[in-house]
């Protein structure tokens, strides 16, 4: 079945990616000019770290969240639902993990479709009904399908380098003053600071667009946008009532959650996720399209 294509979302996604790419190319050029040899060392170090992160992202994320991979015998219903959704999404069935936490949430991780894991909290399983759970799981499968973990790791790579230069750049400057070709290190630090701030905003924007794409993909995988919308509202509502110590522990994982944990006043620009109201609004539009559609 053909759906009304969300061209606006596609255009914004492409534009953000192009802007990030241009920024990174300029930054990489500037780095080569200013830093020369030191860059190679740092590039290797952070590159090595990123590769480790890339290959072990699924295990690392699960471990850092205290998630436990669960078998078919332990959670037959969860496995059955994920398997059916994966079959409908044309994805291999991912590993399934559960976090023992009252905060209702879910996330997907892994570098590729064949090395992916979907994780839910016990709070999520208690809070949602079967249809809503299927909606959330379908959203996470859409993340796997879109390789969000790999895309965001790559997108963040040079941003990380920029941050390291801002934070530790003065160390590189010290020994290299005699080199006539290299500009003062503070220039590199200022350039890096600008790159870091701009790329940070772009990465956050990209993250928000990818949430919309995963909502849309997820709704079409499970065939029930209203169930996903209702799950988002339920999770959002429950968030306010769970103990905050649970939340603080997990706040650094925000970018991967279905709904991020809010920590005070986060402006829209800095947020990894669009507001729940906006996401629900778009899902309702999709639901209306589904309902008003009649077969030829």
């Amino acid at each position, binding site marked *: 079945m053909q759906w009304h294509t969300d061209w606006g979302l596609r255009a914004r996604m492409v534009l953000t990616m192009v802007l990030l790419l241009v920024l990174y190319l300029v930054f990489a050029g500037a780095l080569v000019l200013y830093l020369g040899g030191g860059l190679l060392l740092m590039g290797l170090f952070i590159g090595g770290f990123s590769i480790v992160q890339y290959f072990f992202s699924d295990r690392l994320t699960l471990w850092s969240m205290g998630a436990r991979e669960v078998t*078919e015998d332990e959670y037959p219903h969860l496995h059955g*639902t994920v398997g059916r959704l994966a*079959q409908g999404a044309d994805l291999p069935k991912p590993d399934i993990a559960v976090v023992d936490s009252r905060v209702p949430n879910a996330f997907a991780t892994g570098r590729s479709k064949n090395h992916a894991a979907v994780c839910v909290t016990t709070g999520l399983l208690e809070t949602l009904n079967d249809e809503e759970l299927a909606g959330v799981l379908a959203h996470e499968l859409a993340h796997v399908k879109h390789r969000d973990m790999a895309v965001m790791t790559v997108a963040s790579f040079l941003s990380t380098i920029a941050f390291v230069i801002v934070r530790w750049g003065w160390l590189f400057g010290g020994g290299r003053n005699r080199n006539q070709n290299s500009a003062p290190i503070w220039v590199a630090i200022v350039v890096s600071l600008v790159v870091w701030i701009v790329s940070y905003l772009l990465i956050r924007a990209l993250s928000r667009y990818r949430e919309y*794409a995963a909502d*849309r*993909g997820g709704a079409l995988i*499970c*065939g029930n946008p209203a169930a996903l919308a209702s799950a988002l509202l339920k999770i959002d509502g429950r968030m306010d009532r769970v103990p905050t110590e649970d939340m603080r522990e997990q706040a650094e994982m925000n970018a991967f959650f279905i709904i991020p944990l809010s920590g005070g006043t986060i402006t829209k620009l800095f947020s990894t996720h669009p507001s729940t109201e906006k996401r629900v609004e778009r899902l309702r539009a999709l639901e209306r399209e589904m309902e008003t559609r009649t077969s030829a």
Partner: protein
Amino acid sequence: MGLFDTVRDVLGLSAEADATRPADPEDFFQLNAASVTMEADLDYRPADRAGLCLSAMDSTDFRSTLRDVEDVLEGGGFSEIRTDDHGYTWAVVERDDITDLTTELYVAADTLADRGYGDRLLAAVFPFDPLDGGRPIYWIYSFKRGSFYPFAPAGDHERDSSTEVTLQSVLDGELDVEPDTAYWYSLWPDAPGGHPWE
């Protein structure tokens, strides 16, 4: 995986595209000939039932399409539309002959495809009983892959992979068997021991 697919993934388009890809149920008919091989070489006989699994869509028009499917299947013998514990819809038919089973499921799938719901089709499940008794094995047609895979339940949630590999190696050629075992999805029944739709 080509470059085009990767770009589609990275741009966040593939979940929607693949979830809405239409299906081709004509592949079912490969089973008619394959069932002869199943009996002659492996001592499995087609069971008298088969099921079509689909992911329901939350709309009035989809529900009316399901009623059409029910009407189409009526008359030739037992048939029913049921929903499993995961909220997936099954069209189950009972016929004496494998060619009737494949034809009925083809007609059901085609009815859905005609109304624009071909993308909601998930799997067609054809059980085969061992001649010497024991648990049935299944040939499952996966619509998104456009291929068959074997499913041999052993325990409640365990699979007999050596039997599955045997089935694959003997039937490959007669059936389009999915080469990547990562796509051999388990379809467990709600209650242990039954057919996937039970």
